[in-house]
Each structure stands twice: as structure tokens, then as C-alpha cells.
């Protein structure tokens, strides 16, 4: 039964204290909604201003500001997070009302809105929520459930896991024994070699998916190999790429990793034509943009881009980077949603290495997900690339039942630029000055 998400606004709202993130709807109902669980932090005379940031790059055109609620409700999602927070909002004070009349000392001294926002951010904030891995509810806390669970563990680790390892090894053997000859012997016949290599990449991805008992349901028309198009998808883990590659040999743009993943990237993925970037290099952006453009015009297999730039926990989407949306070609959105009951596919790169993540997947029951190929979108006349990116993010979030968050994914690694704070300061200063003049 879907829990209807009716919050008008999100992000930074004080979370309802009575709940842990993992509680299910039933447990919440049992606890009852008593007054204990109201958000406790707002002084009675506070006003809240919602500011949406859209920083994709250093240029000014990237900053967007709106003082109204930033998110539309997403009704297709089972909201395990929070109950209906609308009940707890003070009536009508969600939009900053421009105070009229004489500027009184009280208005200048009243810093409670800013303080409330700060305290709200300390207690719960939308950015950290995006990257929280939700561990599944433990159900083994009973005398008869525990042996059942133990049996499940034994089955998964000692029967399923070896089987899966065998399947994967077999897959690798088949792949390598076909790939290496094709790669070296067909050096002269480029087209045929490309075609075979791509088929083989699709094959090894299918083996990977089989090794996690992946149950992937694809909806919508399969991607076609046409020029002038780019595919974008929301990003939860590196396995997104494998799941999509199983169906179509996309070319991809990725961060170069170290270790065995990096080795795979440099050898096998070259055959599908990949672009590498380095997050830490600032000049990198122009080089990558150029490479993207060249690829879109030149190559014959479409490019897959994850515009979020980082892995998010499949409940939220962070701001899309506009790089993919200003290439002048049509953008085909893909929405991916994993079913949490079987395994949490979110790769929390701060907490686990990719190898550990893969092992965790291989010792779970299954990886169940839905992939929707959505209608290709084009830049509308008069629309900026950022608006286009937001529009596509809306489409993907609506389809996959994800909530949108107004933060840039790269804030995981760096501080927000002082421009945001200055914006806030500026708006406050403007309102003060305006009222000073009215005096």
C-alpha cells in the first residue's frame, strides 16, 4: 500500500523526531501519532524561506532562486521515511512573506528564522539523507525466526554464493576466450570487430547480472542505435551501468577507478568507446565537454551519462549536471528503481569498496529492479540547459518514485561555494534597504 507523500516542501524540514528512517508504515501506525512526535524546533514566530540552489558550474547563470516550495509530491512511492509532515506545519507560514511597513528594530533583531534554519539543518538535512544507506529491517529477533534466518544465511553464503561464483567464472572464461582472439585477430576488420566486441560486452554483463540473480524488468522501447542522441539515467551504484549495458552496448563516461575495476575499464570498455574524467581536475570539464560533443556527432553507439555525478541512495535525486543537456541532441531519460526488499543496491562509496559491494550483492537473495526507457526529450525553444536538465530530472524522478533534492552531488566532496550564502545575505539586505527607504 503506497504511503502518499503529500509534503509540499522537502529538504531541511525538521524531521519528525519520533521515527527512525527504517520504520515501516505498520510500525508507525502502531506507535500512533501523538504529540511527542511533532517537530520540536520552531520558535513560534518563525518564517521559513526555501531557497533552491542550482549550482552546476561556476558561472552565474547556474544559480536559480525561488522562494516557494521546491518539490512536487511524488505519489508513486512507498514512503518509508517520514509521516505526513503537513500535519505538523504551522499554518500558512511556509512562504517567506515580505514584511511591510516601517522597519522596526524588532525585525532587524529577530534572527530566529535564520537560527531555525541552522538548527533544522543540524537536526536533519536533505543532503545527508540522500546518501544514507538504509539497512533493511532486521526480522530475526525471535526464537523461531532466528533459526529461519540462520538457515537463510547458510543457504545464501554456502549454496548460492559458490554457485554464483562458478557462473561468473564461467562467464569470464567464455568472454576472455572469445574476446582476446577477436580483439587481436580481427585487427583489420574494424566494423566486424567492433560488433563482436560489443556483443561480448553485453554477454559478460549478462553473466554479471546472473551472478547476482538479477531480476530486471525493462519497460519501454529498447534504445536504438541512432546518432545524435544521449541517454541519461539516475545513479545508485556502478551496477546501474552493468544492468543497462546488458541490453544495449552503450558507450559510457566514467570516473577512472583504481584497482581491478580500473583495469577492466581501460581494456574492455575501450571497445565500446568510453570517455574518462577526473572529478578532481577543474580544467577537466572543458576537455570532457569537447569529447562528449565529438562522440555524439561521430560514433555509432549512443552515450550513457549519469548526470548526478555521484551515487545516490535510490530514494532521492540530486541536481543534474548540465553537461549532458547542452550537446544539442535529444536526451533519452532512463529511470532505474531497485526493490529494497531483496537487497539495498546503493553503493555507499564512503563506506565500502566496490569489491565489498559486489560481494554483498552476490550473497543476497536477488537484485530486483525496474528499468524504464522514457520518451526522448529535446531542448524546448527558450529553455536553458539547466531548465532542461531539471525537466528531465522531474520526468525520471516521477517515473521511479524518487524525491528531488536541490543540492549538487559534488557537495559530498567539497563545501558549498560562498555564493549561496551571499545570495541569502543579499536578499535579506535588499529587503532591509527597501524598508528603510519606505520609512
Amino acid at each position: 500500500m503506497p504511503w502518499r507523500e503529500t509534503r509540499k516542501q522537502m529538504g531541511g524540514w525538521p524531521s519528525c523526531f519520533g521515527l527512525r528512517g527504517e520504520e515501516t508504515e505498520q510500525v508507525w501506525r502502531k506507535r500512533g501519532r501523538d504529540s511527542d512526535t511533532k517537530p520540536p524546533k520552531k520558535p513560534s514566530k518563525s518564517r521559513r524561506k526555501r531557497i533552491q540552489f542550482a549550482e552546476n558550474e561556476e558561472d552565474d547563470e547556474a544559480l536559480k532562486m525561488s522562494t516557494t516550495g521546491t518539490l512536487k509530491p511524488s505519489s508513486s512511492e512507498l514512503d518509508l521515511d517520514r509521516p505526513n509532515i503537513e500535519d505538523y506545519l504551522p499554518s500558512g507560514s511556509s512562504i517567506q512573506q515580505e514584511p511591510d511597513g516601517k522597519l522596526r528594530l524588532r525585525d532587524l533583531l529577530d534572527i530566529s528564522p535564520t537560527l531555525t534554519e541552522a538548527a533544522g539543518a543540524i537536526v536533519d538535512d536533505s543532503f545527508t539523507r540522500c546518501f544514507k544507506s538504509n539497512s533493511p529491517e532486521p526480522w530475526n529477533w525471535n526464537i523461531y525466526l532466528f533459526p529461519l534466518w540462520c538457515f537463510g544465511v547458510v543457504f545464501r553464503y554456502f549454496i548460492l554464493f559458490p554457485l554464483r561464483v562458478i557462473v561468473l567464472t564461467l562467464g569470464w572464461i567464455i568472454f576472455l576466450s572469445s574476446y582476446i582472439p577477436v580483439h587481436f585477430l580481427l585487427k583489420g576488420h574494424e566494423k566486424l570487430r567492433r560488433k563482436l566486441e560489443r556483443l561480448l560486452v553485453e554477454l559478460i554483463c549478462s553473466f554479471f547480472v546472473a551472478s547476482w540473480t538479477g531480476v530486471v524488468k525493462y519497460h519501454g522501447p529498447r534504445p536504438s542505435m541512432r546518432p545524435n542522441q544521449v541517454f541519461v539515467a539516475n545513479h545508485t551504484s556502478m551496477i546501474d551501468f552493468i544492468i543497462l549495458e546488458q541490453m544495449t552496448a552503450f558507450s559510457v563516461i566514467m570516473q577512472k577507478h583504481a584497482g581491478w575495476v580500473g583495469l577492466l575499464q581501460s581494456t574492455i570498455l575501450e571497445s565500446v568507446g568510453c570517455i574518462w574524467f577526473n572529478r578532481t581536475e577543474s580544467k577537466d570539464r572543458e576537455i570532457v565537454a569537447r569529447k562528449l560533443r565529438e562522440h555524439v556527432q561521430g560514433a555509432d553507439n549512443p552515450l550513457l551519462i549519469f548526470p548526478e555525478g555521484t551515487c545516490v541512495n535510490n530514494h532521492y535525486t540530486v541536481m543534474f549536471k548540465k553537461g549532458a543537456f547542452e550537446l544539442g541532441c535529444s536526451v533519452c531519460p532512463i529511470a532505474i528503481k531497485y526493490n529494497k526488499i531483496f537487497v539495498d543496491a546503493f553503493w555507499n562509496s564512503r563506506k565500502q569498496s566496490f569489491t565489498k559491494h559486489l560481494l554483498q550483492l552476490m550473497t543476497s537473495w536477488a537484485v530486483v529492479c525496474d528499468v524504464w526507457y522514457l520518451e526522448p526529450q529535446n531542448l524546448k525553444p527558450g529553455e536553458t540547459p539547466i531548465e532542461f536538465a531539471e525537466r528531465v530530472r522531474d520526468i525520471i524522478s516521477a517515473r521511479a518514485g524518487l524525491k528531488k533534492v536541490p543540492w549538487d552531488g559534488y557537495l559530498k566532496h567539497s563545501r558549498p561555494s560562498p555564493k549561496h550564502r551571499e545570495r541569502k545575505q543579499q536578499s535579506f539586505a535588499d529587503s532591509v534597504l527597501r524598508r528603510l527607504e519606505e520609512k
Partner: protein
Amino acid sequence: MGNTSSMLTQYDIEEVQQHCNGAFSQQEIVSLYQRFFQLDRKGGGFISAEEFLSVPEFAVNPLSQRLLRMLDGLNFKEFVAFLSAFSPRACLQQKIEFIFRVYDSDCNGKVTYSDVLNILRDLTGQFISEQQREVG
């Protein structure tokens, strides 16, 4: 994130509740405890300024530096006491006291004209000249 509420006993929760003068209910304290551990990544028992600033919504707040001065090195009990001013159960007196503490940056118990100017400067940044501030 594991089930950290199991690490808090009833005695602990009551002690924290007493320390913040009953501003939070027990469930709220449990949630705050989880949040405290979520923010305290290094596990030192207190949240450092860096960890606070890693919350982007806090970092863009104009008063964040002042609050950081007050928040630095607080353990969980003091953290809850700090936030107790924001509870709807806190009385107006407590809230005003809190705002006073934020204003009083040199902690001398008095809010002077220059303290007020300082806050206004924090809030408005470079977008307003000194004179305009004084006129205001």
C-alpha cells in the same frame, strides 16, 4: 547505520532529558542520538566544526560561524541542551536567552551596539554599507 538506540539506556535518556529541562521527549532524544552519530563520523564523541560544515544547508547559513563557536566540542548532552531552545516545549524566556547568547559574541553577558552591528553584518554580508547598517 546500525540500531544505535539500543546503546542508550532508559537512565541515559532520562539524564539527558533532565539536562535539557524536559524540552524533548524520549523518542526525540533517541532520534537526536542517531543524528549525532550520523554527523560524528570520526566517532570522537563530539561533532567537530568540519563535520557540521559538511552539511551544506548549515554551511550556507550566514550565522553558521557564530553557531559553530557555540557548538564546538559539545558532547551529546550539551548538544541536546543547545537544541532545546528550538523545542516547542521551551518557554519564550529560553528562546530569548538563546538569541541573546548568539548575539553576545564576546560572552560578557551584555549585548552592546557593536554586537548588534556584528550580527547585522553577518546577515547582510557586503551588500549593505556600514552607514546604512547604522541608520537601520
